[in-house]
């Protein structure tokens, strides 16, 4: 069964907020209607957003690391928000596993938001219905777009390609590969919600440079000393000088 999801690489996210703004732009002008802001230029602005990039400091000074954490709406395989909905407005699509809200059925009782440990759902203050990430469902199946554009808006916007999109139930997909080979993990696994979205952990990048990588040990010219030996101050050039 298909389960579409985002896989977010914390190792490359730079916290630029491009996914936040492009998500807002696409979804506020998309078929799902506006994501309303209230008091946008006032002292206490508030509004509906489907994703946020948060920043955490891990470790103790001076050994700290800054982790930018794009908080996403997880599209759980076992979504606890769906069975609690009294009207059936909240549902999970069988064909692709996207968890959606039917804005025409939602009564705005907020009960689903209580039943979500991730805080994935927000009540739109103006429309008074629950809203959540749709994985850009109005975009990924839009055949009028070129195939490269049929991806969620946030994925398209990410300048560092920190966001991958695909079917995590297809073992050959890029997202499955990333989860398998880069240690992808879900958030709050203790609740058994099996979020579809995964995160790839930070990785330490260390380069060990061996001496023979600076001075080529197997340089054939070095062996028979055919070329003149340059002075120590001159640059080393493989295949040109003897060392």
């Amino acid at each position, binding site marked *: 069964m298909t389960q579409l999801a985002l896989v977010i690489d914390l190792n490359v996210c730079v916290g630029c907020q491009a996914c*936040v703004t492009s998500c807002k732009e696409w979804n506020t002008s998309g078929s799902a209607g506006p994501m309303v802001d209230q008091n946008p230029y006032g002292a206490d602005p508030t509004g509906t957003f489907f994703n946020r990039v948060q920043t955490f400091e891990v470790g103790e000074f001076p050994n700290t690391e800054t982790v930018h954490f794009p908080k996403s709406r997880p599209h759980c395989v076992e979504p606890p928000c769906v069975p609690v909905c009294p*009207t059936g407005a909240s549902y999970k699509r069988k064909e692709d596993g996207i968890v959606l809200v039917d804005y025409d059925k939602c009564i705005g009782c907020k009960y689903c938001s209580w039943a979500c440990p991730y805080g994935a759902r927000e009540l739109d203050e103006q429309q008074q219905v629950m809203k959540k990430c749709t994985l850009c469902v109005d975009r990924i199946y839009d055949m009028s777009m070129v195939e490269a554009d049929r991806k969620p808006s946030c994925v398209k916007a990410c300048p560092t390609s920190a966001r991958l999109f695909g079917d995590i139930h297809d073992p050959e997909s890029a997202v499955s590969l990333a989860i398998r080979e880069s240690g992808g993990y879900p958030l709050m696994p203790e609740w058994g919600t099996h979020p579809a979205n995964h*995160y790839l952990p930070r990785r330490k990048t260390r380069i060990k440079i061996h001496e023979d990588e600076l001075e080529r040990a197997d340089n054939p010219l070095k062996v028979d000393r055919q070329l003149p030996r340059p002075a120590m101050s001159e640059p080393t050039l493989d295949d040109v000088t003897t060392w």
Partner: protein
Amino acid sequence: MHPAFSVIFLTTLIGAAQGLFLALFTAQSYAAFKLLPQPDAHAFYGQGSLLALVLLVAGLVASFFHLGHPERAWRTATKWRTSWLSREVIVLPAFMGVVFLYGLAHWLDWHPVLMTLPGGLPVDPSAILGVAGTVLAFALFICTAMIYACLKFLAEWHSPLTVINYILLGGASGFTLAAAFAAATAPELVGFLAGWAAIITVLALFGRGASLVRNARLKPKSTLQTAIGIKHPKIAQKTQGFMGGSFNTREFFHGQPVAVLRGVKWFFLLAVFPVPLLFQLSGMHGGFGLLLTAFVVQYAGLLAERWYFFAQANHPQNLYYQSIA
């Protein structure tokens, strides 16, 4: 969680109404078995049911203020297979209907004998409606409480104690109200009802006390480590990603200092249990004023109790919203 007054009034008002109805039918059952004198059915059961109905309607009206789209409320009856909220929405009007019919049967003195129990006890429509209403009253208590108790993410609610306390607290306030009402309409039942009100109040003290002790010892299952999946003992949020408020910063936090929380807790511990108990016991011999005071104080205490019930519940999503920068 953010305590919504609509839900606080809904749960306390219908709880008192359910308790009141249970008290009426308990008295009727005792009277049927000649354990209590027969009161003026017209006044006590008839008007008592009307009082319960008024509370139920008031609760229902309060609940509509919780909805973003009240005009779509009829849709809530559709998902009763999975949602306790949906079940509550079905059981509440059913209970209201039965309370109405029960009151009507007494009001019109409609007591044809439908059948006779082995002991020679006649069964009239009000008895059958009473049994149906009792079942529905308990079903409604369970539905209302399970809305909260079924949410495993809110550990403070996710316990059988939630259901027990909704039943006991609703029962206590309902029986207290019934005792006060009997003082005005059926003085011969006051001692019986006030006695039961006192007993249920004491039981409720044990139930609520147990849940307070339990909640004080809870250890959150989710931590910042599991929330973002980084295994390090020291993680601090530097920014939640926005500087203004959002639904996530409003809905899941009561927004009051700890002192307020503590004050509300001690207020309800006094106003729901010992103070009404004092008035219930001193009003056992027919003091309408004393029993009415008992109910008013206990109901005010229950409003605080319900506020605290919501405020105390700590939602794991709050882990993501701890710092603005």
